[in-house]
């Protein structure tokens, strides 16, 4: 995959297990990556190290997101008498949970419970900034948008 081992440099094979090492401080040094279709991509050592971190972070984010959805579904079950549905939208800078109340107006009691959920998720979700927004069912599309995913209920209720 990488030609790192062929290049005589500071990136020398690890003497313990034979794995070539790429050091981020070698920011000037380029490596050629060749995929299974023989497409070659050149990247600096610093870029390779950063990309590896992102890959690890992505896997962690996905695991945390999945756990967060599970927790939000539990929360929804606890307030099912107050709400119709919940959706999630993943934005570039935050994750927004849209909560549609049974009430036609903003439900202050549900709002208080949403705040408690936000406090809990803010400290433990591990997916960046999380926000909840209560929206009327009649204007759901205006706020939630087409990319939003249904979180609760798992089985859509008959209209």
């Amino acid at each position, binding site marked *: 995959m990488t030609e790192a081992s062929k290049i005589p440099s500071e990136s020398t094979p690890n003497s313990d297990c034979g794995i070539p090492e790429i050091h981020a401080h070698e920011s000037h040094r380029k490596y050629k990556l060749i995929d299974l279709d023989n497409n070659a991509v050149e990247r600096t050592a610093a870029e390779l190290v950063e990309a590896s971190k992102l890959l690890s972070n992505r896997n962690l984010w996905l695991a945390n997101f999945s756990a967060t959805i599970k927790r939000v579904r539990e929360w929804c079950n606890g307030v099912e008498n107050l709400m119709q549905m919940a959706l999630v939208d993943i934005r570039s*800078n*935050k994750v927004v949970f849209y909560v549609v109340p049974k009430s*036609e*107006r*903003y*439900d*202050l009691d549900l*709002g*208080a419970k*949403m*705040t408690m959920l*936000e*406090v809990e998720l*803010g*400290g433990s979700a591990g997916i960046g*900034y999380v*926000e*909840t*927004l*209560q*929206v*009327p069912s*009649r*204007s759901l599309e*205006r*706020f939630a948008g087409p990319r939003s995913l249904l979180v609760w209920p798992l089985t859509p209720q008959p209209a």
Partner: protein
Amino acid sequence: MTNADKQLIRLHIEQWKHNRKFAQTIDGQYRDWQVNVIFCAALHFIDAALISVGITVSEHTTRNDAVRTNESFASVRTQYLNLYRISRVTRYDPDPDKWLPEKYLTVADLVEDLLKPIENGVGQLIGKSIGFESLPLKG
């Protein structure tokens, strides 16, 4: 706390007073604007309180996060975040009056139920930093 911070707190307090006073002049048929101006008043009060404890914010995400994660703001979280959420929808919904809780018929109701708890809850943080007296305004 630096003099610049104290000056910034005073500016936020002036804007809080300005918005609070303006809200009371808005006719009852514009309840959507009443709640948005009350929210703006609350926002400036929160910003003044946050600076008083060493936190400067400039956008909703960081402000909301500070309110949610700092124990000094625990007593006002629900009121502030309810105001934030109501304001978000009433700014963009085509029929905002239908979204407002029925109990908020007047500005006085909004002030009593949502703004005053915030002022009472974190006013002392500001008081410690600039000698502010909480609730100098009526209603």
